[in-house]
Structure formats: C-alpha cells, structure tokens
C-alpha cells in the first residue's frame, strides 16, 4: 500500500530576482514502512520537497501544481488547522540543524512534554512518562531529560530531536540531514538508532541527505534529485548496480569509498545551475556527457522502466553507464 504519493508537484519561491524553481514536476510514491532516501547536491531542492509535503513553506513559497496524497487524501488543498494534526501524528519532520533550535533556557525533557501537551489531551504525568519511554527508544537514559541543552553533546541533542519527532507516534518521518553536522562515530550511532526505530515501529521514512554513503546504509529505496527534479528512483541495490540516469552515475562516481579497490573519482564537470533560470529541456543537459539536441529542447518524462524503477532521461536504458 502506498502511504504517500506525490504527483507532478511544482513549488516555487518568489524573490526579487524572479521565481526560484525549486521543485519542478516531482513525482514519488512511498510504500508503508519503507525507508526512502532523497539524495542530491546542495541546493537541488531536497528540503523544499520536505517542507512542501508538510506545507511548511515560508511566505514567499507556493505550490503551483500537483497532488500530495497522504493515505489517499490530498494535502495540497487542506486548510492549515487540518494540516496541523497531519504534521503531528501523520508526518513528522526533523529539520536540518534542528538540534540548534532547542531552547537553551528550558530543560530538554520539559520542551518535549510541552510539545506533547500542545497536541494531545494528556496529563503532565503521562507526558513525562512518554518522554522517558522515548528516551529509552532513542538510546538515552531517561534521567538526561532533566538536563539543559548545553549539557548535551551534539549527538544527544539530535537524539532528543528524534525523540520529539516520535512523540505522538507519527505514521511517517521526514528527516532532513539529521546527521550532517555530526562526527562520524556519533553519526553512526544515530543512524543505527534510526534504523532500529524504523524497523521496530514499522515507520515510513523519507531520509534527506547529500551523502550517498549515508543513504546507502539507511534506505531501501533511493530518489536522486537534480536541480529541482527527481531524476531517478528505484531500490538502492539496483540504483547502485545499474543506474539509468547519467546524473545518478556521475553522483555515484563522486564519492570515495573506504572499502574495495581504490577508484579514480570521475565527478560531473561544472556545477549545478541556478534555479532562478534553470536550463531548458532536461535541466542536466549543460553537464551531461550524453546530451543531444533533443535534450535541450524537450523535458524528459519521468518514466517507469522496470517495476518501480523510474528515470527522467530521453536516452535512459540506451546509454552505457557505470
């Protein structure tokens, strides 16, 4: 069963210089209990997709087109008061750099209790009891809820943020770069915790990261994003073994690995385009080694090539990649 289905979503930010076309015709389907990674370079629109799904857009952001079906129900036309309950126990989001947003003057546990009581009719005791359980779940001793944020390490803050996101038992979590600011050992323990929780609660997850190594470890499916488009989407093993999109191929060749033979990196030349004025046709054509005239003129369709393996490239399947 599909828990989330995004169809042809378009979201722009208006700025003095014009519209930033941050999400352009994105489609994505996620099954219940699946962990899906959303990967791409800085500025390609990953966070924009996350905040579009939850309709947490800044004042200058607007959805122009598309559907966001959550359990079959379209979120796009939903009024704000209904969205609030969706955000709490439907889809909960862990924001990029959220750990820096903990209020320094309140105990961390109190902040989570307050959040719970704001959304649910429970007593203070029940809320504290739940915080204790959540702390166990994210691998922290419940007494630590009594501490202030500055008494936490970065990893502990991030665990507390995850606990808060889980507080009202959401069906799905969107985690935006949850370990990017952390050291590798701490990152690893958080990833392990997230995987454990995901399996235990059968949680659906959209995991956003620029780091394909982290995504490869955490997610069973991967969506690759480039310049506002999802350009490829499939299960992780297939994506790594036989990518269909030249950008996916370039991204995979940009990461060194600590395992296996030492391979020369073969990064994509140039840089991602400015989304104020993205290239015509296939947005990747300015950097793609396989680009033809057609690519400049026509937007490639996001097509399903094999079961649940999608790609947006005019020549997908005909190119020799990897």
């Amino acid at each position: 069963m599909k828990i989330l289905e995004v169809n042809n979503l378009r979201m722009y930010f208006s700025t003095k210089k014009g519209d930033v076309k941050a999400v352009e015709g994105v489609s994505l389907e996620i099954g219940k209990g699946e962990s899906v990674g959303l990967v791409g370079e800085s500025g390609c629109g990953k966070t924009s997709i996350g905040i579009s799904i939850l309709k947490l857009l800044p004042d200058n952001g607007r959805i122009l087109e598309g559907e966001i079906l959550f359990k079959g129900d379209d979120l796009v036309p939903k009024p704000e008061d209904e969205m609030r309950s969706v955000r709490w126990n439907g889809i909960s989001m862990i924001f990029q750099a959220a750990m820096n947003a903990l209020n320094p003057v309140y105990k961390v546990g109190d902040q989570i209790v307050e959040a719970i009581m704001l959304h649910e009719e429970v007593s203070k005791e029940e809320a504290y009891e739940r915080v204790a359980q959540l702390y166990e779940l994210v691998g922290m001793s419940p007494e630590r809820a009594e501490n202030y944020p500055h008494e936490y390490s970065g990893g502990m803050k991030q665990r507390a943020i995850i606990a808060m996101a889980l507080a009202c038992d959401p069906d799905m979590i969107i985690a935006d770069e949850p370990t990017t600011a952390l050291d590798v050992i701490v990152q690893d323990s958080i990833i392990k915790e997230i995987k454990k929780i995901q399996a235990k609660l059968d949680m659906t997850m959209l995991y956003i990261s620029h780091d394909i190594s982290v995504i490869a470890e955490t997610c069973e499916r991967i969506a690759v994003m480039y310049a506002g488009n999802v350009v490829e989407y499939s299960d992780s093993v297939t994506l790594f073994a036989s990518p269909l999109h030249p950008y996916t191929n370039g991204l995979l060749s940009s990461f060194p690995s600590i395992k296996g033979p030492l391979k020369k990196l073969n990064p994509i030349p140039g840089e991602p385009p400015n989304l104020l004025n993205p290239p015509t046709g296939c947005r990747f054509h300015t950097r793609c080694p396989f680009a033809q005239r057609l690519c400049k003129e026509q937007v490639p369709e996001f097509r399903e090539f094999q079961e649940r393996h999608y790609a947006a490239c005019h020549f997908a399947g005909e190119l020799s990649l990897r």
Partner: protein
Amino acid sequence: MPLLDVQDLTKLFALKGGLFQKQTNYVHAVEDVSFQIEKGESFGLAGESGCGKTTCGKLLVRLIDPTEGHIYFKGEDIAYLKGSALKEFRKNVQMIFQDPYESLNPRFSIMDTIAEPLIIQDIGTPEEREELVANALKTVDLNPPEDFIFRFPHELSGGQRQRIAVARALVINPEFIVADEPMSMLDVSIRAGVMNLLLELKERFNLTLVFVTHDLAVARYMCNRVAIMYVGKMVELAETEELIGNPYHPYTKALLSAVPVPDPKEKRERIELRGRVPTPINPAPGCRFAPRCEYAKDICAQQDPVLTEVESGHWIACFQRG
C-alpha cells in the same frame, strides 16, 4: 632528510578565566606530536572535530606559534622564527582553507585576493603580478583569466571560489601546502573536482601536501600516509592502505568501523564505543582514549603511550601493542 621533521610539537591555548579565577585553563589542542614528511608526499591529518587537525596544520606553516617542540623544515628549525626570517620561510609554504565561503575576503577582487601573497612577499612589479595571477587562474582551470580577474567573490559560484583559494596558494610557487577541508562539504561534485585538481597539481609541481580532513574515505583518496589524531594526540600513523586494512589502535578501529560505505550491499561490522570524546581542556594524564577503551589497563591511566614504530612505517601510541 625529510622535508619536514616535527618533534614533540605542542600547542596550548590559554583560556581567559573569570575575574576571580586564579588558575588559567589550557586547551591542549596539539600535544607532543612527532612525525616526518618526505618531499612530494601527500600526508593526511584525520580525526573527529576538535582533535587538533587544523591547529597542527597551522603550526606547520607557522600561521600560529607553537608552545613547545620543533619543526625542522629542510633541516632548519622554523618553530620559533620571527620577523624577516619567518617571512622568508613563508615563501615556501601556503595554507588553503577550503571553505570557499569563509576564506575569501568579500571586499577583495580576485586580482587582489590572489596577488596578496605576492605583495606580502614583495614579488614582482604590478604588471608581473598580474601575469602571475593570470597564470595561477589558468592552472586551476578558470579560463580565460580576464573573465575572473576583476570580479569579487560573491560574483562567483562555490566551486569557482574554491579554485580561487587554490590559485591563491599556488601563486608564490610554494613547495609545501596545507589544505584544510571544512567539516561538511555539501557540494558533492565540486568537492570531488577539487580533490582531483589538488592531486593533479601535486604531481605537476612536485608539491608536498598535508591534507586535513575528518573523512577517512577522502583521506584514502588523497593521501599516501595518514595520521589519526584524538584529543590533541597522534594515536596512529601508517601508509593509507595499511592503516585502513590493518589498524592497530582501538580508536582507529572504532573510527574506521563507523565510516559509511557507498554500497547498499556492504554490511559493516560496527565497533561501539562507550562515552564520548573528552574535553581537551586540562585533560587527565595517561592515554586520552582510556576512559572509552575496552583494553585499558592500570598503566593506561598513568602514563602517556608514546607513538612507536611497531612495524616498518606503522606507528601507534598504545600500551597494548607498543
């Protein structure tokens, strides 16, 4: 003779206490570190945030003064040089801060930015400098130079700014470069491009490179040898493939086991560490890793393990194998 012979190098930062604080506290940023670097080598300094990598790099090019120890550059101790002797030494060395957003002065044009080391060193007439700057731009593939020379940093993309930082380091034709990679480089294809550029330039100009990174996969790609640091100490040093394939130190093993691998089929064995990185402020005597080490014996809390060569070219600081 090695190009660089570092003996017992130490850097303490005094922390200014409050008005009534009698005792001054010291950050032991780098402590008793000894190693040699051969000409033409690419030497990695790796470890978690705050372990002293950047401080060590800055000491090597004498951007800061050491507290104790010696740095022999081609046989001459440059650790305490001052005035004109220091300036003379600086003709040979450069540091690249790879964070393109922080390292370039926004009010300096590209010409001013790259020419700065030439002006400091009194090299060339204005016309000659312009030519040297143009050549440096060509070297880092910013062509044609006239297109860049009078622009300002904000008029360049992230990748171009990184290349400017490299050009600035190369313009005085140094023998030795320290390149410091920031904690998280989100621009994936740019990062890979700059790594390849640095490797290419190292070969072309027979440079000696110290590469500072928290990412061991990156260190593997960039370096012949890697040193692992932990709370100001060097705990292990070996040829990169040897270090990765055959680590001795318990900390190195844990660190390596936490590195995510860009391959969804890879199943890693994790080594879990208890506790967290201790503070470098007035650290306890003995091995810095002892509170987290499963092999710790009494001696570990009493004596500092010394970096010792346990096999040809493979050095560790641990009583277990030392």
